[in-house]
C-alpha cells in the first residue's frame, strides 16, 4: 500500500498542473497584501463593527491576514483549488489511457483507488495549509506578528501564541471542509474521463447544495447538507469555542468524505475501463 501511495505521489508531484492550486493561493494573497499595506485599520473596523474607532497602533499583522484571507476564500475558492488533484487522479488517467496500462497489472483496484484518494486528500489538505503558511510568511515579512484581533462577536483580542493555535485549528477544520468538496470531485472523477468534468461536477453539486441551503422551503434538509457544516472553522474564532457544535460538523464532513470514497470504490471496482 505504501508503495502504491509513493507511486501515485511520484506521478502527481512531477505533473506541473498539480501546482495550479498553489499558484492560485499566492495570486489570491496579492490583493490582500496590497490592501493591508496601503489601507488603514480604521476602515476595516468601520466595515467590520459598523462603528468608528480611534485606533492607536495597528492590528494588521500576519495572524490578522491569515484569518481575513480565510474568511474570503474558504467559502468557494479553496474547495476548488483543493479539488484539482482529486478530480484528476482517476479521470485524468482515464482520459490519457494510462488507467488501462495500470490496471492490466496484477494490482487490486481497491488498493489503487485508496492510494489515489490518499494522494488527493494530501493535496487538499496541503493547499489549505499552504494558504496558512503563505499568509503567515508573507504577512510576517510585511506586517510582523502580534496579537490576533477577532471581530466575530464584539471585539476579542487573542494573544499571539493562542492566536497561532486557533489559526492552526481553524485551518485544520477548513482542510476537512476542503476535503469534503475534493471527495465529491473524486467520486465524479471515477465516472468521467476528464478532470475538468470532475471538478465541474463537484462545482455543480456545490452550487445546487448552496442554493438548497438558502431556500427556506428546504429548511429541514439544512442540517444534513455538507455545505451547512463547511464553515465549522469559524467556530474556532469564537470565545468560548463551541466544541460540541464543532465536533458535530466535523463528524458530518468526515462522514461525507467517507461516503464519497466508498461510493467511488463501489463504482471503480465494477467499472469497465473503456478509455
Amino acid at each position: 500500500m505504501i508503495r502504491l501511495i509513493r507511486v501515485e505521489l511520484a506521478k502527481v508531484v512531477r505533473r506541473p498542473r498539480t501546482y495550479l492550486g498553489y499558484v492560485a493561493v499566492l495570486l489570491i494573497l496579492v490583493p490582500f497584501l496590497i490592501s493591508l499595506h496601503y489601507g488603514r485599520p480604521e476602515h476595516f473596523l468601520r466595515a467590520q463593527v459598523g462603528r468608528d474607532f480611534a485606533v492607536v497602533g495597528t492590528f494588521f499583522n500576519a495572524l490578522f491576514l491569515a484569518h481575513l484571507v480565510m474568511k474570503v476564500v474558504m467559502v468557494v475558492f479553496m474547495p476548488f483549488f483543493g479539488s484539482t488533484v482529486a478530480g484528476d487522479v482517476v479521470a485524468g488517467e482515464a482520459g490519457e489511457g494510462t488507467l488501462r496500462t495500470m490496471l492490466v497489472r496484477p494490482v487490486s483496484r481497491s488498493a489503487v483507488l485508496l492510494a489515489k484518494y490518499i494522494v488527493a486528500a494530501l493535496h487538499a489538505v496541503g493547499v489549505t495549509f499552504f494558504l496558512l503558511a503563505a499568509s503567515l510568511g508573507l504577512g510576517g515579512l510585511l506586517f510582523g506578528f502580534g496579537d490576533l484581533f477577532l471581530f466575530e462577536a464584539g471585539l476579542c483580542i487573542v494573544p499571539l501564541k493562542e492566536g497561532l493555535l486557533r489559526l492552526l485549528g481553524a485551518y485544520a477544520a477548513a482542510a476537512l471542509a476542503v476535503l469534503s468538496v475534493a471527495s465529491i470531485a473524486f467520486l465524479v472523477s471515477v465516472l468521467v474521463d476528464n478532470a475538468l468534468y470532475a471538478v465541474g461536477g463537484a462545482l455543480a453539486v456545490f452550487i445546487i447544495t448552496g442554493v438548497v441551503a438558502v431556500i427556506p422551503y428546504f429548511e429541514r434538509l439544512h442540517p444534513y447538507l455538507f455545505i451547512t457544516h463547511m464553515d465549522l472553522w469559524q467556530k474556532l474564532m469564537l470565545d468560548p469555542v463551541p466544541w460540541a457544535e464543532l465536533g458535530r460538523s466535523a463528524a458530518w464532513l468526515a462522514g461525507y468524505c467517507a461516503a464519497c470514497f466508498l461510493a467511488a470504490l463501489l463504482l471503480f471496482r465494477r467499472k469497465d475501463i473503456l478509455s
Partner: protein
Amino acid sequence: MQSAAQANEPSQAAGAAAPVLRAAGLSKRYGKRQVVDGVDLEVRRGDVFGFLGPNGAGKSTTIRMLTGLVRPDAGTVAILGHDLHRRPQQALARVGAVVEAPALYPHLSGDQNLAVLAALSGGASPERRREVLRLVGLEGRAHDRVRTYSHGMKQRLALAQALLPQPELILLDEPTNGLDPGGMVEVRQLIRRLAAEEGITIFLSSHLLAEVEQVCNRVAVIHKGQVLVQGSVPELLQAAPFVTIAATPLEQAREVLAGIAGVRVAATDSGALRVECDPGRIADLNEALVRAGCRVSALVPGRLSLEEFFLDLTGSHP
C-alpha cells in the same frame, strides 16, 4: 469440453499441455449492441496467436475482457490456469499487455514510466528496466521524457512495460497500428524474437492479414463479435487456394478446365479465370490448356485476400 476442469487448476499441476489462455463463451453488450458474442479462444504455450478481424469486429473489447479491464456479461477467462474473474491478481501475475494505443505518462521519462508501472506489481530493479529497454532498443532514450518520443518509440516502451514482469504471456492490441512501414517491420521482428528467444507466448490482435501471416502460427478470426474459425494459419488461409489463369480464347479455356476433375472455375474477371484447385496441379492445368490449343499467358497461384476470406467466411460473396 473435457478439459474445462483443467482450466481451474494451477498451471504447474495442469502441465505444459494446458492452454496459457482460455476464454469460454465471452459475451459483452453495450446498450443494444452485442459487441462480443460467445467467443471461445484457446492459446497454447509457445503460440504467436493472431486475433484477426476487421475494425469494429469486437477485438478490443475481447482483449479488454482478457485483461480484466472490462467485465464480461457472460463467459470465463482462465490465464495460466487461474480464473481471471475470481483471482485476477494471480491470473495477471505473469502477463504483460498493451491495450490499444500505448498509454504512458508523457511527463515522465521512459525509465520513470517503467519504474512507476512496475511498482504497481512488485517493482523492477534498475537492471531489469535497463534490460527490457535494451531489448526494445530504447536504452539511449531512457531518460528523455516520453512526450518527446515518436509513436514507434512509445509502442516499444509499452512493449518494454509489458515485458517487465518476465511474463509468460503477452497480449498486444494492434501492435503496429499507426506505425510507419519501418516501425511496423521493427515491431514485428521484435515480436518474433520475443517468441523465439524469450519463449513468450504472444496473443496479438490485428486487422492486417499480412501481419498475422508473417508473425503468427495460429489465428482466430472474429467477425461481428463471433469467432468464425480458429486454427493454424496455413491451414486456414490455404483452405481454398486458387489459380488465376489468363488464356485465349477464354471460353475454350473455361470449357477445358471445367472438364478436369477436382477443378472448379469460380469466376471470370477482367479477361482471366479464377480456378479453385490444388496448387500442385497447376502444371497439369497448363498442359491440358496447351494441348487443347489455348495460348496461356499467365498462371498465378493466388491466396485469398483478407477481404475475400471474410466474405467467404460470412457467406456474403457477391
